[in-house]
């Protein structure tokens, strides 16, 4: 649309006064997710000023600092609460919450449930690397059963959280999963998520070689991408598989779509009904 392609586009959205390369480990998928997010925003032609990226704490939380949007790096697990306040204060803003799996599902699990229940018009991006990376590789709620971590040296005893089912049950409008290997699909998902009303959740599977892979038989970052390539399967095809064939497969794609109005739309509609005044515009 403006002559630029590929990473030339991405470079237009990076903060040039920040130090690159970024802090993330070699081969970390988080950079790929960030690139995908940028391309999605670019594809939708959303002005930079209208984007607010609200990040939590952890490796994913560090991404916000690199992009030239309004960026808010919040406290651990609370990104969605800040995002909710921002969206309600100014519904014109496009609010994106960037969280890790520990961030979104463990310490912030309650906020995730209630953001989905309200169906607040926020796009939640959960970067799932199955581990607490920044703090040194402790178990997260997304760590697979049997995996070895710093806090589960004898193997994880519980099952990993099913983010999709959680969001479905809580009332989100849109839930999808992608991986950093299947980037074009992930981009398609993100573009749809950003364009929809209500609460959208995109789970991006992004491997952590440093803290997770090395302890779980993935010798190099490349091994983890090979694993993604091998195990991911379109959700439609996954549904057709017999139960015994599903073992070890990772369904990706759009799990469901609903069209309920976002909380902010319902709130401002209520206000309008009460006061006869139109919904508040942007505060510019």
């Amino acid at each position, binding site marked *: 649309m403006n002559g630029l*392609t*590929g*990473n*030339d586009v991405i470079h237009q959205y990076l903060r040039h006064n920040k130090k690159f390369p970024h802090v993330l480990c*070699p081969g970390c998928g988080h950079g790929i997710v960030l*690139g995908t997010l940028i391309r999605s925003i670019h594809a939708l032609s959303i002005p930079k000023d209208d984007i607010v990226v609200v990040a939590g704490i952890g490796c994913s939380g560090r991404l916000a600092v690199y992009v030239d949007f309004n960026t808010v790096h919040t406290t651990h697990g609370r990104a969605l609460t800040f995002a909710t306040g921002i969206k309600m204060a100014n519904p014109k803003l496009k609010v994106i919450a960037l969280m890790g799996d520990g961030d979104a599902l463990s310490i912030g699990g309650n906020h995730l449930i209630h953001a989905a229940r309200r169906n607040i018009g926020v796009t939640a991006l959960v970067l799932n690397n199955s581990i607490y990376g920044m703090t040194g590789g402790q178990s997260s709620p997304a760590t697979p059963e049997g995996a070895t971590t710093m806090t589960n040296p004898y193997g994880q005893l519980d099952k990993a959280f099913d983010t999709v089912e959680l969001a479905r049950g809580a009332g989100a409008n849109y839930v999808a999963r992608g991986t950093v290997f299947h980037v074009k699909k992930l981009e398609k998902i993100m573009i749809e998520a950003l364009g929809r009303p209500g609460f959208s959740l995109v789970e991006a599977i992004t491997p952590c070689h440093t803290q997770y892979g090395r302890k779980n038989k993935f010798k190099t*970052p490349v091994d983890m991408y090979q694993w993604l390539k091998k195990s991911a399967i379109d959700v439609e095809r996954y549904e057709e598989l017999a139960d015994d064939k599903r073992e070890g497969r990772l369904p990706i794609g759009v799990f469901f779509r609903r069209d309920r109005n976002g909380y902010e739309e319902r709130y401002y509609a209520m206000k309008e009904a009460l006061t006869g005044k139109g919904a508040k515009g942007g505060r510019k």
Partner: protein
Amino acid sequence: MAHQKKGKSTVTVYPDWCKGCGICAEFCPSKVFEIGEHGKATVVREKDCIHCGFCELHCPDFAIVVRDKSPVAEMEDTAPDKPGAKKGA
């Protein structure tokens, strides 16, 4: 289709940004890259590039740029800033 593109692209790796993770070298269908002696991705077979875009999409560090050989006319910042937004609050 892809073969028709062969030899029509330039591939640049910014070594300062490359961390040498090896994703590009591993997955490039035309084996354009190798990890060089300094642990960075190096373009070794540029003429084989089919401009599939995989390396650009999958480079976690935004360190690879693939461009058409035909000169790009304009390179100015065309990212969509909101018109008139820079006026202050």
